[in-house]
Every structure is written in C-alpha cells, then in structure tokens.
C-alpha cells in the first residue's frame, strides 16, 4: 500500500512533465496538422538553458530560494520560446500548405540539427546538477517503508497545475486563444475573417516551446542530470501521450501524459525497469486498436 502510494506520487510527477511536453505536440498538431518531431529537442534546450541560468546564478551567489527557481523558469521559457519561434519561421513556414510529409521530414532534420547543435556547443558529456530543493515531507509510514513527497515533486505538481491553469485561461478566454481555436477549425476561413493566421501559428509555437521549457526545468530539478539526448525519448513518450489522449485535444494531452507517467512508473516498480518503454508503447498500441482516435479525441469524419 505504502509502496503503491509512493509510486503514485512518482508517476504523477513524471506524468506532469510528459503532459507539459505533450501539450506542445497536440497544439501544433491541432493547428497545422504536423508532427513537430523537434519538440522533444526543444524540451532538451529548455533544460539546458535552465541549467546555464542556475550556474550563472550560483556564480553570483544567488542560487537559493524560490526566486532563483522562478528566474530559471522564466529565463528558460523566454529563450526556449525564441527557439520555437525561429524554428517555425525558418523551417516550417516556407512549407505551409505543402504536402504532408515535407514538414515531417523537415522536423526530423531539425531534431537532428538541434541535438547535434547542443552536442557541439555544450559537449556530449552528461551534466550533473546538485539538488536545489533537497528533502521532503513524510506522507505515511508503513513498517520500515517511508512514503515521501519531496519538495521537488510538490514544486513540479504545483508549477505544472499553475502553468496549465494559465494556459487554459489563455486558450479559452483571450482573443489569442479564440484565434488559435479558429485556426484549428478552419485556417482558410479564419484568415478570411481577419485573423492573422501566420502570427497565430507563430504564437502557438512560442507557447508550446515555453511549456516545453517549463517541463525541461522541472526535469532538471527532479533528475539533476541532463545531456543532449534526453529530448528524443521524452519527446517520443510525450507524443505517445498526446496520441493516447487524442491528438488535438488539450485535456487529452495532460491526461495521456499522466497515464504514460503512471504506467511507466508502476511497470518499473512491479515488473521490470528494462521493459518500461515497451509497456508504455504497448498500452498505446492497445488503446489505438480499440479507440483509434485516442481517449478524448474527436471521431474524424471521412469525406469523399
């Protein structure tokens, strides 16, 4: 029981990270119908920028307290968003309206570029960082087993919920969100009604990258070790989460992320660590066989 509770806590905090990345995938997919394969690497860049900020702060002797973490988060979000914007502007916008596989290949190419760019500029070695928020609170004690909710996990859950709340408000209540939803339904019609679709799509990429940066910072705080390759697996898992939840659906992305996180954690805890990825992917395949549009996805209408 206590063990399961601990796994639940771990699974949720991991799932939150996947969910944040998945939102970026699902948003871009919803609005322009492309798989942004480089999104996982944007997450990785977010983690690196957060690490560099932390090192800068520690050089100035200011690396403690919530202010430092907030600063890491904000700086990482700002610069990563800039990467997202540039990516869209340079690599995806020229291919707008082109056939479907072209942006996919461009995205794969960009993913290779970003990974190797970081490998060249930051080195291939694993970057360790000491824990910023050590310790935690004891939730429950069952015999010799102590269930712990670490401060970092609390931070992850809190920050993710806050960011997602702001994001939901943005999508449902602001003119930008309305424009985004309009573009998602029918881009041509939205353009005819005076929505600047290029700008809306740019901002979608910016927001997606900022959310990935939050995930990257949280990942850094939680695991304390990053390298240039973390983006690939996290990206694939997050995309799996987005598809599992029904691609194009924002609550679905978060739900899918949580599910993938939980499946992975529980599988590692009770069965085998080596096959945790197999478990996550198998669940994906099974879900899609019975629910071909994911958990919360809309049924696509086939038109002739």
């Amino acid at each position: 029981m206590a063990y399961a509770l601990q796994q639940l806590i771990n699974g949720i905090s991991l799932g939150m990270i996947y969910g944040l990345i998945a939102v970026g995938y699902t948003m871009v997919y919803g609005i322009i119908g492309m798989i942004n394969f480089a999104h996982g690497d944007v997450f990785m860049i977010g983690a690196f920028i957060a690490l560099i900020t932390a090192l800068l702060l520690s050089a100035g002797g200011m690396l403690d307290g919530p202010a430092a973490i907030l600063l890491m988060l904000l700086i990482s979000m700002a610069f990563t968003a800039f990467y997202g914007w540039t990516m869209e502007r340079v690599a995806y916008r020229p291919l707008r309206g082109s056939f479907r596989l072209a942006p996919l290949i461009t995205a794969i190419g960009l993913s290779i570029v970003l990974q190797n760019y970081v490998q060249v500029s930051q080195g291939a070695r694993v970057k360790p960082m000491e824990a910023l928020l050590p310790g935690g609170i004891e939730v429950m004690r069952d015999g010799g087993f102590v269930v712990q909710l670490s401060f970092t996990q609390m931070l992850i859950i809190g920050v993710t919920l806050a960011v997602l709340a702001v994001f939901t408000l943005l999508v449902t209540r602001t003119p930008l969100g309305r424009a985004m939803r309009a573009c998602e339904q029918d881009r041509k019609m939205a353009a005819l009604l005076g929505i600047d679709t290029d700008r809306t799509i740019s901002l979608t990429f910016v927001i997606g990258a900022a959310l990935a940066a939050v995930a990257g910072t949280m990942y850094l705080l939680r695991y304390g070790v990053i390298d240039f390759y973390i983006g690939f697996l996290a990206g694939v898992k997050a995309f799996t989460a987005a598809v599992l939840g029904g691609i194009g659906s924002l609550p679905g992305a978060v739900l899918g992320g949580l599910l993938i996180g939980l499946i992975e954690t529980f599988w590692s805890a009770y069965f085998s660590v080596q096959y945790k990825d197999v478990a996550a992917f198998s669940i994906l395949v099974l879900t899609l066989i019975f629910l071909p549009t994911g958990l919360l996805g809309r049924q696509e209408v086939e038109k002739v």
Partner: protein
Amino acid sequence: MTQASDDRSGESRGGLNRPPLPIPRALRDAAIAAAIAFGLFAVMVGLRTEVSPTGALVLRQRWAEVAMLCGIVFAGRLALTLWLGRRALRPTTAPGPWAVRLQQAGRFFAPALLAAALVLPIVSGGDRYLLDLGILVLTYVMLGWGLNIVVGLAGLLDLGYVAFYGIGAYSYALLSTHFGLSFWIGLPLAGIMAAFWGVLLGFPVLRLRGDYLAIVTLAFGEIIRVVLNNWVSLTGGPNGVSGIPRPSFFGLPFSMSGEPDTFAGFFGLEPSPSHRVIFLYYLILGLALLTNWVTIRLRRQPLGRAWEALREDEIACRALGINVTVTKLSAFALGAMFGGFAGAFFATRQAFVSPESFTFIESAIILAIVVLGGLGSQVGVAVAALVMIGGFELFRDLGEYRMLVFGGVMVVIMILRPRGLVGTRTPSVALGEKRAIGGDLVGEGRG
C-alpha cells in the same frame, strides 16, 4: 520582433519576381537576422557548461564564437537578399533547370547510373574505401526501395522500418551462429521472418490512419530495439551477436590460404582480401536490383495498382471492391521482407550485430531518403541515397559537425524541393502515351 517579421513575410509572399531590394533595407534585414542569431546563440554557445576537475559544473564564456556566428548570419543573410532578392528559399515543385535537363537525359540517366554501379569495382581497382562506401550506399538504396513500397506506393507512413532491418539482421545472425545455416539459406529465412513480423504489425494498425499509424510504427520500432537490448539470453543484449560467418561464394570461402577449395584457389586467382569486398558489393547490388525489379513488375500488376489506388483514395478503393486488408498487409509484408534481406546482408557483412545499429535515427534517414528522392520514384530514391549517404561520407573531415550539417541539408533540401529531388512521376497506367507528371499531382496517402 514578431510584428516586423510578419511585415516581411507579407511582402515576400507577393514579391516573387521583384527586383532586388535596396541596400538599406537589405542591411536592416540582415541586422534583424543577426539579432535573432544573437538571441539564439548567446546562451547556448556563449556559455558552455563544463565539468571541472572537482566534479562541479562551471561555465566557460565564448563570446568570440557568438560574435563570429552572428557575423556569419549577417553576411549570409545580406548576400542572400542582395543576390536573390526575395526569391530565396521559396519551396517549389516545378522542375528546376537541372531537373529539366535530367528529364531530357532521363532515358539514359537510370541506365548510366546502373552501368556506373556495375563497373565501379573494376574502375576503382579494388580500392577498399570506395567499395565499402559503395556497399553502404547500396544498402540504403535497397532499404529506400523497400520502404518505398510501403510509403511511396501504398501510402502508409512507416516510421519504424528499421525494426524489419533489425529483425532480418538478428534472424540471420542467430540462425547462422546457433544452427550453422549458410548465408544462402539464412537470407530467405531472414526475409520471411521480417515479412512475418510485418504482417504481425500490420494487423493491429489496419484501422489506423495517417499520423496514428506513424506513431504506432515508431513505437513498434522502439519496442523491437528495447527487446533486442534486454533479452540477453537470446540476443546477447547490448553486446550483440558476434562471430557471424562471412558469406562464401556459393560454398567457396574467401580465404587467404589459396587452397583449391577456396574462391581464389578454385578460380586460380591470386588470393586477395578485396575479393570478398567485391563479392559483397555485387551481392548488395543484386539484392537492391531485385527489390527494384520486383517493385517495377508489381506496379504493373493488380496488386501494385491496388497499392497506388489505396494511396490515392482509400474510400474509393473500398467502393470498388478492393480488399483493403490484403492490400495493406501485402505492402507491409513485402516492404518488411526487403528490409529483412538488407538486414541479413548487413549482419554477414559486419559479422557483428548490436541493437545500436537499429535506432530510430536509421528509420528517419531511410524515410528521408524516400521522401527526398520523391515518393514513388525509383531513380529518385537511388539519387537521394547517393546524395545523403555519399555526401555524409564526403564530409568525414567535419568530425562532430557532420551530423549537424546532415540535418541542416535535410531541412534545406526539403524547404527548396518539398516534392523531392526528382519532381516528376511516370504514371503506372495511362490512356495513350505515358507522360511524366508533376509530383504534386500524386496522392500522398493518409495511411
């Protein structure tokens, strides 16, 4: 910043054939590009994290590099604007000037390419490096042609093709090391094994379309790799399988001893290590041509036409009574079989297989070759494999920057020619005379 860029994009759309911009505008434009570059590079290049001897991370500042990169971006953007005006970097599917010339020479181009491939071992005089490179390129040509059946003809987006390559390689590796089967028995078995897995993967994904199909095939590829990596008792885990027998010339081993029952001894030749390499070269060339031949023949048969019909419109296919299940599964199975052949060849050539050779990036490269070549174009795939893999080898000196350049080239080619290097297709069926049509008239398939 966003506002300014939107202004520019608005102009660039209408400015296809405008005269070059005045210099002050071009300078301002380049300055903006440099400012963007500074924003990108300042943190990631300017501050490098390094592990100090004490184990802690430290930052090293590299502002000179940042300044240099910004300078390059400034100069590059300025040169591009002044040289091309606003025409730069517009995607086009219209045949470029060289493509027209290629089309004129098209009748001779494919045979010329084939002839060049055939005589390469003779011309190169047994140059080991050139032959190895040829073998590598041909392996990718074969994989590209195999995947082309699935993606190019049947229109099913497969992101996990490398799984079948891996299954073929491991099948042959295990059959030969455990049961001592020779290459010529192992090769078809590896192909059958891969085809079997192709059907096995095909069944659950029959209902899936488009990107759902893509992610499931990707997941399948990852599952296979993880299993290969962890099933230590069968596959040897990360250490892989080593000691895979080298291929023999129909029973005559390539050996340096010169005995009568070796290849050199039997034909009365001077024993030379290049015999085996030349043999391997012709072997993969033959396998690749087999793939090509089967594809070309099948395109003229009911099955191949059903694939292409499926790619163009699945609903119409169903309405016309085409069995979609059989059509899709056969595409998966055949594509997988050729992947399996290539895998068996890979295993015998390397004499060693490990899961590292079958990562997602391989799938991505093969898919990129198919798309860059132009979906469904056989010559295009060969040219793309030559450009991508050959080019990758040419830039060996770039060291760690090589993959960076590789990815960049992929992006640039795609932006300039979204329909691939060969932008035209010859329809399989035509009323009257067959004429080449633009690639953008061909359906892309939604899975």
